[in-house]
């Protein structure tokens, strides 16, 4: 029995060890490629958030949305627009649209086009020129932008959830794919506001750097965003775990299995369908907002179908119905994809791995779907987690045999 208990704890212990390694990594590792590797890891966490929230939406609730990246983009663009157009000033500009809050003014900068000649012509810059440096204008807090991005993502998720209530499977996939195309098209087209393909620059997560345990990290240091993204991932996983273990998880799985039967048993299917959309899209949006500040620029290209495909593939390969597995799968695959970047020389031919690795990835996705329906990582976790069922299965089989004998 003691051995059994040990076995049951293996995934937990392994998880703790993995987490410990992730936390220790930036302190221990100090190689020549330090900042590149940190960047890879931060991106991996970003994808892990998207993959795990998508696995809740698709794997748990059965809502195969292909618009997950659009919500990520909504989060990223919300905070970008917020940082770009809203400022706090102790003096009224007299030129911009502004709102007095106590002793400060909330300044809304007028949107203008992208041409370089007009860069200095927005109302705030004109006012600042007139002041000649006498007045200090501050940006809005970055955290507020991220929170707003999250809320905005959730809000759009709520609306899309309402719109797709009556849609199932293929129709839902088509509609969400279309939604993400609309978002991308709008961002690309409304150049006056979003600057289109040129993208929008954002301030870094910690504009003035940050001091942790007596060590100062500058605004471009990788360590603070590493821990911010890791913390966001862990928060999302904690929320997802809590949801999955509460009746929410039970109901959305019932919804996935049979919507009509769930409704006939008293489950308010509408409510849970909309809720699961809202929560998971808000997570995607928060990841997008943080990533936008970390990378420092947002462009419509981050919404390309490739990105959605990557998230879907990571979740499927990790294990569609287990968001922890999906997150681990995303981290492993993102790191693997980065490591496969270097070219391979084969008998005089140079194989450009930057594209070929994606081909292998696609093949891996199809093979996983065909032969490993629970993904590659989830079965390992389940194997330990469901060991106690094995004993009962034997009993069940025995019972079934007696039943057959009775026939």
């Amino acid at each position: 029995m003691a051995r059994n208990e040990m076995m049951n704890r293996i995934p937990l212990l392994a998880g703790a060890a993995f987490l410990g390694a992730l936390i220790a990594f930036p302190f221990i590792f100090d190689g020549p490629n330090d900042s590149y590797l940190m960047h890879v890891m931060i991106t991996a966490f970003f994808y892990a958030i998207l993959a795990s929230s998508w696995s809740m939406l698709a794997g748990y609730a059965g809502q195969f949305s292909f618009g997950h990246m659009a919500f990520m983009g909504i989060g990223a663009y919300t905070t970008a627009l917020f940082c770009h157009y809203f400022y706090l000033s102790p003096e009224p500009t007299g030129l911009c649209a502004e709102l007095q809050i106590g002793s400060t003014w909330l300044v809304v900068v007028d949107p203008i086009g992208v041409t370089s000649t007009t860069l200095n012509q927005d109302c705030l810059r004109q006012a600042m020129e007139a002041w000649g440096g006498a007045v200090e204008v501050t940006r809005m807090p970055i955290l507020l932008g991220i929170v707003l991005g999250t809320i905005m993502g959730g809000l759009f998720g709520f609306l899309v959830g309402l719109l797709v209530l009556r849609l199932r499977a293929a129709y839902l996939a088509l509609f969400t794919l279309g939604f993400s195309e609309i978002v991308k098209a709008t961002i690309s087209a409304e150049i006056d506001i979003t600057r289109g393909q040129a993208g929008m620059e954002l301030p870094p997560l910690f504009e003035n750097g940050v001091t942790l345990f007596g060590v100062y990290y500058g605004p471009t240091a990788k360590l603070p965003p590493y821990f911010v993204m890791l913390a966001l991932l862990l928060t999302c996983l904690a929320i997802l775990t809590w949801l999955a273990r509460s009746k929410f998880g039970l109901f959305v799985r019932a919804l996935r299995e049979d919507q009509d039967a769930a409704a006939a048993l008293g489950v308010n299917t509408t409510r849970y369908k909309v809720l699961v959309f809202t929560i998971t899209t808000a997570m995607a949006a928060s990841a997008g907002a943080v990533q936008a500040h970390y990378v420092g620029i947002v462009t419509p290209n981050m919404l390309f179908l490739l990105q959605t495909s990557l998230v879907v593939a990571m979740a499927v390969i990790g294990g569609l119905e287990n968001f922890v597995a999906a997150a681990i799968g995303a981290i492993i695959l993102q790191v693997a994809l980065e490591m496969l970047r270097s070219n391979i020389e084969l008998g005089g031919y140079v194989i450009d791995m930057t594209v070929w690795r994606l081909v292998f990835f696609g093949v891996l996705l199809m093979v996983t779907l065909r032969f490993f329906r629970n993904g590659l990582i989830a079965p390992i976790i389940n194997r330990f987690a469901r060991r106690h069922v094995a004993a009962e299965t034997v009993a069940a089989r025995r019972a079934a045999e007696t039943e057959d004998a009775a026939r």
Partner: protein
Amino acid sequence: MEAPGLFWGVIVWMIFWGAVGALVIRARYLHRDLDTSNTVFVGAMTGAALGPVGLAPLWAATPQLGRFLSIAPAILTVLLVAGAFAFADPANICVTNGSFVASQFTNGLMIGIIYGFMALGLTLIFSILGVVSFAHGEFYMIGGMLVYYISAVWFPGISPLIAVLGACAVAFLLGAAFERMFLTPMYHGQIDRPVEYGILVTFGLAFTLQYFVQAVAGASPVKVQRFIDFPRFGLPSKEDPWLMETSRGSLTLFETVSIPNPRFMAAVTCILVLVALLFLLHRTWTGRALRAVSQDREAAAIAGINPDRMNMLAFALGGMIAALAGALLVQAFSWLPQVGNIPAMRSFVIVVLGGLGSLPGAFLGGILVGLVEAAGTGCVPDPQKAASYIPAYGMIVLTLTLLLRPTGLFGRRFAGGVHGAK
């Protein structure tokens, strides 16, 4: 736009009365114990077109909603939107220049025929396998790529006809092989959730194909010469060709409407192949077997038809149709590995609009979407925005369809159940 307020005001007014019409008319028909299947659509369109003036008689008389009452308000709505646009933006090229409108219309029709043809492949796959192929755009892409490779790289100077046929053959074989390896297991109970599996595995195929082509061909666009030149020609006479005139690269009707050669050839070929396809489906044993499987798998199997083989044939044919569309259009556009994304989206819109699984619906839907896009790209005042919004025009159509008539124009059977709208 001179008076955007007018235009958007009219739009908001229409949306308001459309929503009121959809709700009120449906409730009224339900209350009177009448057939409600078409009431949302008719109510919305009548409300949008005529406002309370149209809704009141509909509410009072509750007539049977036949073909006329379904179509007339919809057409009136479109005309009213166009009229409001003309009033709001009188200087727009769509309003001032009749020949531009005619050109735009004809080209929209041509391209719509090609879209419809491509969507036909998607709907064929769906009606027989019950799978929406997310790799449809990639078949379109490889069709064009193969024509480029065959006619310009591997066998320079070869007849474009052979290149097109070769592309179709390769796409057919690829579709058949994929179906046998990845989709057949769905029909033998080896897959837990077949609908979701079908979506994801075709999505995986799309991903793989797209990057495979990018790895082989690179990310820079390729271009193919136009296949044939028009012979010089004039109607009624060469000297005074007011009816029709051709040059090598284009065809001019009534001295105003100009159609580029590649589009014209592609549309004509599509129509010819469509006729051949209809012949196959209705006059041959294989075609009848295909249709039998699409109606009832079990019954067809009992009648001695091998449904697995029909699945393979349908998927291969569907993929080949998309590849043919690509092979014909590669002479008109520059070709990239990502070129299939937008046509794929468009095909999805078209099949939902036409009704999933309906062949005539796909064709008519294609023409409608082609016209909507032509109007969108031609008339939106800022041309750069107009081009960026291309994917959105189709999506507006899709959203309206799903809201007002989830079964599509002709769809009935497939709208329910596990595949689609409830």
